[in-house]
């Protein structure tokens, strides 16, 4: 692997010095868009992939391609070994107690659907409640709405403030004897808000309410320890942590997973099958029907290895510095309104510029080679909350630079001029 060993545990300077070398690990960062060097500020949508991940996927197809968990031949054993080794990597990364608690999925969305259908649905009765927050991504709203519709349960939503924080005490007050599960976003993709999830899990557990955390925006930006958080389920996507698309993980507490019925039926998840009766495989295979994304799973392991080599603390410190700088620059731009100003915030700058539609801002930035996301960010209730149709969103990763932030603000000045001439 061509990554740089972490030579400084602390924030700031170490990362800045290494930045050019780390950026070289990501082939796409050398791309020119419309004749200009790419500035990739759409990391909350998906992150770029380091060479080591790309190489690992290629290696699987070139050297080890075989189906897993069934062959007696060398290739199958090798593929199985690599795939299961990646599971161990994920297990250690999240500090799960056992590899049985690590279920591979297609992504965060599938992980949440699995919990909604397999854990919540059999437990929900008419009048029961599922508790979420007003800053959830659609993937942590719709699966719960679906099970609520099927069971007669009610979806209850914790409101947020104008700054994009949960209204103090509302989560605790919303927990009651009818609450069957709380599903909370760890870090908001549209606002950047970092929720006090450790405290929220403790409050929910005090009322015997299990908690799922949507970690899609968290895992690539801060260390996550599921035992320290004490959550019951934790979901994340591989592609948002420099890994392949179509990969993801559901962490679940073993005793809960043991007592949940399978989510999908098929090969790989069974012990014995007859037309009269089928017995299911042990964890984690019980939840992994069919041939999985083997190359992706192995690639995800490589992505986590990469992240751990660079160091999440260093990455987070650098991103925080970028956010601090960008936020300060944003304050100097007349007519720029930042949406989401939580005190605890990840590196997401969601904004509006005068009355220019965010898509027009996005197109003008695109013409300058700068990729941002514009739209409702799969969080339409948040847009409704702020009475806006959309926002422009720049989201940073550790490989972004201060100079790239400068280019963003030069381009925003162009947009402002175009629309005020």
């Amino acid at each position, binding site marked *: 692997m061509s990554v740089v060993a972490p030579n400084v545990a602390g924030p700031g300077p170490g990362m800045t010095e290494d930045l050019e070398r780390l950026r070289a690990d990501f082939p796409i960062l050398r791309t020119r868009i419309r004749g200009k060097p790419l500035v990739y500020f759409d990391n909350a949508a998906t992150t770029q992939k380091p060479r080591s991940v790309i190489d690992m996927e290629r290696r699987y197809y070139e050297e080890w391609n075989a189906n897993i968990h069934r062959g007696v031949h060398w290739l199958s054993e090798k593929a199985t070994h690599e795939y299961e080794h990646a599971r161990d990597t994920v297990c250690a990364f999240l500090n799960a107690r056992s590899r049985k608690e690590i279920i591979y999925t297609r992504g965060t969305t599938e992980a949440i659907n699995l919990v909604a259908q397999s854990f919540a649905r059999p437990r929900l009765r008419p009048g029961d409640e599922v508790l979420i927050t007003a800053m959830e991504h659609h993937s942590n709203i719709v699966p719960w709405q679906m099970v609520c519709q099927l069971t007669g349960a009610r979806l209850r939503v914790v409101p947020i403030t104008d700054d994009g924080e949960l209204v103090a005490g509302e989560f605790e007050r919303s927990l009651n004897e009818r609450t069957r599960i709380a599903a909370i976003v760890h870090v908001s993709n549209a606002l950047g808000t970092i929720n006090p999830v450790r405290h929220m899990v403790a409050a929910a557990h005090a009322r015997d309410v299990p908690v799922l955390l949507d970690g899609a925006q968290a895992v690539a930006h801060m260390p996550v320890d599921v035992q320290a958080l004490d959550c019951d389920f934790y979901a994340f996507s591989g592609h948002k942590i420099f890994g392949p698309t179509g990969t993801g993980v559901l962490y679940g507490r073993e005793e809960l997973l043991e007592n949940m019925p399978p989510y999908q039926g098929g090969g790989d998840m069974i012990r014995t099958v007859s037309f009269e009766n089928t017995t299911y495989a042990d964890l984690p295979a019980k939840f992994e029907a069919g041939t999985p994304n083997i190359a992706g799973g192995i690639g995800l392991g490589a992505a986590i290895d990469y992240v751990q080599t660079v160091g999440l603390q260093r990455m987070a410190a650098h991103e925080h510095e970028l956010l601090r700088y960008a936020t300060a620059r944003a304050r100097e731009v007349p007519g720029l309104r930042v949406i989401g100003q939580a005190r605890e915030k990840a590196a997401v700058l969601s904004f509006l510029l005068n009355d220019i539609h965010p898509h*027009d801002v996005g197109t003008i930035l695109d013409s300058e080679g700068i990729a941002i996301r514009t739209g409702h960010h799969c969080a339409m209730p948040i847009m409704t909350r702020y009475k806006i*149709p959309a926002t422009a969103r720049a989201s940073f990763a550790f490989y972004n630079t201060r100079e790239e932030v400068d280019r963003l603000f030069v381009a925003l000045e162009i947009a402002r001029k175009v629309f005020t001439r």
Partner: protein
Amino acid sequence: MMDLNDLYREVIVDHNRNPRNFREMADATCTVAGHNPLCGDQLTLYLKLRDGVIDDVSFQGSGCAISVASASLMTEILKGKSQAEAGRLFDKFHALVTDAGDEADPELGKLAVLAGVRQYPSRIKCAVLSWHAMNAALHGDTMASTE
């Protein structure tokens, strides 16, 4: 390489800021609600047809600069056109924003500035929203979506 100024030209910025024929029409003979889910553009198009001729056309709504300017420019060009002529303009405008070839048809006039959206395929839906609404109106429909 088409420069940015080829898309966000003054005429688009102007028509976005001061859209023409931006009003409700109480005596419209056709009213169509248009929606572009990508940008959240929403517009209502009003047409008054008399003897197969577009006697008056106006619109209301909100959206990105491309959709608003395109609608505004469209209302200017449609007034006094026959239904058949409006249908031909629809085809010519569609070709303008999707075909990479050739010069803009002179009949499109100022609408030629919207050729710049070809460089930004995701924005073509914004440019054609009002036109789909017009086409729907001519076919007796009351809703139009870019999806």
